């Protein structure tokens, strides 16, 4: 399946029917721009089709809400991609879908277009929580949608869930998990609600009208989720991701974590190759305009220094069960000592020359890399 050398392709569908109050991804609610966006994708694909000759072995249609596209729109998108790029035989083709948008004919269309993996944004099965999150669908609608998926040909579907918000109880969260598991999903993404500045929820937090879950609550939810899902046979293979078996890991997302090359098309999409990263402008209008003018819609780019490469390897590695190659860590003075300390305190484990995070390590995955960094020039001092 996952071939680290082959690149992945990502397409950003920047449209949503309504905007969720916690969301800080780029998306707009004006569907009238879909045509121009598709025209843009077509032009952008033409720019890159010569530079990205090797076949892609993953395609991920994300958003936004890709399921907002009707059969015609999605058909055109897939035509564009097929005409511009080559894909390996068993390419993993994922689309993110909203339960509300799922119909039997839509599913049939996905299948016909070669899509073989669904990522379904269920978020919760508690009506009160769905209202709080201002999602379009209800729990009943989600159950119905899953019923349709099960009676279609899709076996490889994953469910996205959210947890760790104020007012959610362990009981309600466990109930959601249990009911979702009864559907037999191959993959689960369980994200903690992030309250970012600049979102309506973020503003409510600063005004004091919305409370954050405490760090201890978040920690308990995280541990509980992992234990619960592992007890049900899932592999906790990335901080927020669980799969029923290795064959169900998200190959596309693995490319991000393993620093494999990927090309992102569409507004705000990110690309990576040969230690260079670049990203597109976020505005749909600017994106379309630049392409019309024959320019690349790139908003920024960077070439990584060796130091940055190293930081990324740790930052990404420690988010996954696979961890980090021991040699990438102990090449710096004193990191051996740090490693010994982290191992003895149960934060990481060392196996087969790889350093991987334990559950407690996952909890502080964002901080782990710095522990192997701060000390390059500073010394651990032993007193007296």
């Amino acid at each position: 399946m996952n071939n680290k050398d082959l690149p992945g392709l990502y397409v950003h569908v920047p449209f949503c029917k309504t905007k969720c109050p916690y969301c800080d991804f780029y998306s707009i609610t004006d569907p009238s721009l879909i045509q121009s966006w598709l025209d843009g994708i077509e032009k952008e694909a033409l720019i890159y089709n010569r530079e990205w000759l090797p076949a892609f072995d993953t395609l991920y249609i994300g958003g936004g809400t890709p399921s907002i596209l009707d059969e015609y729109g999605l058909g055109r998108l897939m035509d564009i991609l097929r005409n511009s790029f080559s894909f390996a035989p068993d390419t993993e083709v994922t689309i993110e879908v909203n339960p509300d948008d799922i119909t039997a004919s839509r599913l049939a269309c996905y299948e016909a277009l070669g899509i073989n993996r669904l990522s379904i944004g269920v978020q919760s099965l508690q009506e009160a929580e769905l209202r709080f999150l201002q999602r379009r669908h209800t729990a009943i609608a989600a159950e119905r949608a899953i019923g349709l998926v099960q009676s279609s040909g899709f076996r490889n579907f994953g469910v996205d869930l959210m947890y760790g918000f104020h007012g959610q109880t362990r009981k309600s969260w466990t109930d959601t998990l249990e009911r979702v598991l009864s559907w037999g999903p191959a993959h689960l993404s369980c994200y903690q609600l992030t309250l970012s500045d600049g979102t309506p929820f973020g503003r409510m937090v600063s005004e004091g009208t919305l409370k954050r879950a405490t760090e201890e609550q978040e920690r308990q939810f995280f541990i509980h989720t992992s234990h619960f899902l592992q007890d049900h046979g899932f592999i906790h293979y990335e901080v927020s991701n669980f799969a029923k078996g290795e064959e169900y890991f998200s190959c596309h997302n693995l490319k991000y974590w393993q620093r494999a090359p990927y090309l992102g098309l569409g507004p705000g999409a990110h690309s990576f190759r040969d230690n260079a990263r670049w990203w597109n402008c976020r505005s749909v209008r600017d994106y379309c305009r630049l392409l019309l003018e024959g320019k690349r819609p790139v908003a920024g780019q960077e070439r990584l220094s060796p130091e940055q490469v190293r930081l990324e390897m740790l930052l990404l590695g420690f988010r996954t069960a696979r961890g980090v190659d021991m040699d990438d860590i102990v090449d710096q003075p004193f990191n051996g000592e740090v490693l010994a300390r982290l191992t003895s305190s149960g934060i990481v484990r060392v196996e087969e020359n790889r350093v991987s995070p334990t559950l407690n390590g996952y909890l502080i995955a964002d901080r782990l890399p710095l522990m192997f960094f701060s000390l390059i020039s500073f010394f651990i001092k032993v007193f007296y």
Partner: protein
Amino acid sequence: MKHIRNFSIIAHIDHGKSTLADRLIQYTNLVDERQFRDQILDTMDIERERGITIKSQTIDLPYMDNDGREFELNLIDTPGHVDFSYEVSRALASCEGVLLLVDASQGVEAQTLANLYAAMEHDLVIIPVINKIDLPVADIERVKLEIDHELGLDPDSAILCSAKEGTGIEDIFAAITGRIPPPAGDPEKPLSALIFDAHYDPFRGTIVSCRLFDGTVRPGDMIRLMSNGTTYKVEEVGIFHLAREQRKELTAGMVGYIIAGIKTVSDTRIGDTITLDANPAPAPLPGFKEVKPVVFSSIYPIASDDYQSLLEALEKYKLNDASLIYQKDSSAALGQGFRCGFLGLLHLEIVQERLEREFDQSIIMTAPSVQYRFILTDGDVIVVDNPLYYPDPAKIKASEEPFIRAAILVPERYVGAVMKLCMDRRGVNSHLNYPTPGRVEVTFDLPLAEIIFDFYDKLKSITQGYGSFDYEITDYRESDLVRLDILVNGEKVDALSILVHRDRARDRAVTICERLKEEIPRQQFKIAIQGAIGGKIIARSTVSAFRKDVTAKCYGGDITRKRKLLEKQKKGKRRMRMVGNVEIPQSAFMAALKTDNE
């Protein structure tokens, strides 16, 4: 022939000294409107940001009165902080008169008084100026009463002014030219010039600012600095407009600069007398003294391999600031560094900030200390400003610490709170004086160590901003001193040790432990912080281990954002030092000083 007046503006901080200087400069059209900026004499970034004057600046204002007489008015702007009071006294010694500025809404404050006394010591003509009369809360009658009762000056002689709006400026010029006498002095006598400031110029070396009392100096003259007898050949003399303006000579009564191939400002002494080598003055001008640092602290580079670069930065910094002293120091926790002496806490902060901003150094400073004296059982007396060198307690016969005399001016209703504050800080020998109805002058003897940290902030807060304060160092007194050590996870962090009075040790230990608990970021293990005297633990706190910090998903391959976040934290880590296996940020070292409990 031009008429000369030498004057200075003195005031309590924020009463409008810099603003008035701006107005006077603008009035003389020395700077064209486009180039003008507010607080024009405060040229350093740090002065402009903090709104304080650190270095003296001198400017010669050309002025013509109604009778067509041409004047050269030398305005000597002085630093507005007790740390620099010696510099101020030398600047005042260079003048014949001062504008004593009083804020019409605040009235007379402690530094108004202190400045007035300093001006009176030099027999200067004092022109009271009531500033900020444009403010709706201005209370001119009350301020006049205070000028009468507290300053003992004729309130009718006060000029009403709004430096902000430019009202009263002509009256001020009239008073400067009319009331301040021209400088006396004989250009034919042997040269005697007072150094009141020195600046470093990378191209010219030291630029000495001086006031000539007698004699004449010209390029080519051999001058002699009377305190140490060194001689230099004068390259250039001149006066200060906004830039330096070269002149053929400086003569008695003038204020100006001398460039004489003097390498660093440390080769000159403020208050020293310049004379001619060939024809020296019989005696130096009075009032010269060596300024001695009163506050000491160690500076360490955050990365120990930056020691050399810190040394170079200090050397460069010192070119322009003779009052900073430093010598090598080393700590078990922080490695190689420097023990530095400062004129006061503001001076310390300035040095810290400039080293970081202008010299790009990442540094850690340890708790400031005063200089203690220990009389040992064998009769030796040692002076210790660094807790590292605290002698073996068994060998100490007696210990002594420096005391100050503090003068605090407050409205009567705050007297209780001020008395309590001073007593909490081991104040003794209090006196109350009621100069004007409703106002009290509180004087206290206090240990210097008790006021160098946050005394002024505390005073401001308990008096809701109405209290003001001034002090002078008086003497050493016997005191029961101990060394308070701080242990992090059982390991002593020598750089956090402080010397403290035994009665205050427990309180300080508790506060420091609490402060450190807030400042030390949680790490993946629990951190115990303890305060100890000798081997005995007297306070403790715990930093709990962190539990979780995994944040949002890496969406759509946006790794950059996440990495940048880490890079930022990584930079923040540049301000941390590993001590044992705990990361201690620089802020912890400073926070440990605050005595506040909240």
